[in-house]
């Protein structure tokens, strides 16, 4: 595949002082544009054997139903030509409905839910589609600044079809009032690029009286894939 340089503003700023921990962690030298055949043609091979029975139903990890609003999240993963990224590993993780992560470092004084860990993984299908059932995560405070609250979000980790397509990002929910105050969301200068991180409510993917649907499509870098997508 070919990987065009990304225009300024589409990626977040590596050093964005409003998000304090970027200041000493964001590289200061420009990324080197490197020609290398393997990263743009090959990848790890993650087959179905890595999947566990409830990896795509995060509400089924405990002895009973977790608390909160059950939702389904789905979308297509495509490349810059719009071609589906098939058979590709996607990992997701998130806070519970109270805004608390199942993680030893999360000190937020909100309750853990013994029936919800907020961890999942899946492979995209032949149309590039993924789908998982979960609980709508709550917003939560963090120590970045006074009254710093993260908008509700689900973390995504994507492996793509070739190594250079790797992406880690966050999916947000429509019309969150915290967007304007969140330096992580705002670290992306381009308004349209920010908005592409916001999922859409989907009546089509809503399941009867069980759960509302949200759709989040993902465009990975790379164009001119070989016909097999490899």
């Amino acid at each position: 595949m070919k990987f065009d340089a990304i225009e300024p503003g589409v990626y977040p700023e590596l050093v964005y002082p409003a998000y304090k921990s970027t200041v000493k962690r964001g590289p200061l030298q420009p990324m080197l544009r490197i020609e290398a055949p393997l990263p743009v043609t090959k990848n790890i091979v993650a087959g179905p054997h890595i999947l566990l029975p409830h990896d795509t139903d995060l509400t089924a990890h405990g002895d009973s139903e977790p608390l909160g609003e059950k939702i389904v999240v789905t979308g297509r993963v495509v490349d810059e030509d719009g071609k589906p990224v098939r058979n590709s590993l996607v990992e997701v993780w998130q806070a519970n409905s109270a805004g608390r992560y199942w993680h030893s470092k999360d000190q937020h004084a909100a309750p853990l839910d013994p029936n919800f860990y907020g961890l999942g993984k899946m492979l995209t299908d032949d149309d590039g589609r993924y789908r998982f059932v979960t609980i709508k995560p709550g917003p939560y405070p963090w120590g970045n600044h006074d009254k710093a609250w993260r908008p509700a979000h689900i973390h995504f980790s994507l492996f793509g079809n070739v190594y250079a397509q790797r992406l880690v990002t966050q999916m947000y929910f429509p019309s969150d009032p915290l967007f304007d105050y969140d330096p992580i969301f705002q670290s992306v200068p381009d308004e349209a690029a920010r908005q592409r991180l916001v999922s859409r409510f989907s009546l089509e993917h809503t399941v009867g009286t069980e759960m509302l649907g949200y759709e989040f499509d993902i465009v990975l870098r790379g164009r001119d894939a070989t016909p097999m997508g490899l």
Partner: protein
Amino acid sequence: MSKITTSQTVGPFSHEAWQWAADACMPGALKTSGPTLLLSGVIYDGDGNPINDAQIEAWIPAGAAEEAEQLIPGFRRAPSGADGEFSMRIPAPGPEAGAAGEPLAYITVFARGLVKHQFTAVFLEDAAGLAQSAILNQVPAARRATLLARQSGDGQYHWNIRMQGERETAFFDYV
């Protein structure tokens, strides 16, 4: 304007979700048939402080053939520890890989405060073919040393990752 989905930080809470792949390459779980070497190092921020919540991934395309039994052949994932330390056991490169100037491993770095993952690559300082490496030859000469792992013992190599500073690791954007 590109329509790609932009990046966001991995944040501090990835560990539980990412652990399944890290567990698969821990000593005792790793299923690799050929000889291996131990790559270890520390990841530092711009003040020289260790980063204790990074995730380091390594991709070893040439090693995948020896790891058909491994959960993800030729792939390693290691969270950094309390002192920024990480280590992974990697298939020792055959003579062909060394001669071709291929890296020991292609590396991807994630951390809280790092809003986009960073690609880089690590080479053994004593590998044959370093001078012919197509990748190293695209890195300014003054920065090549940031990609070289130093031998620290029999079958052991040490390689630090520095996010900033005079010895900032050379990070890549693939064409």
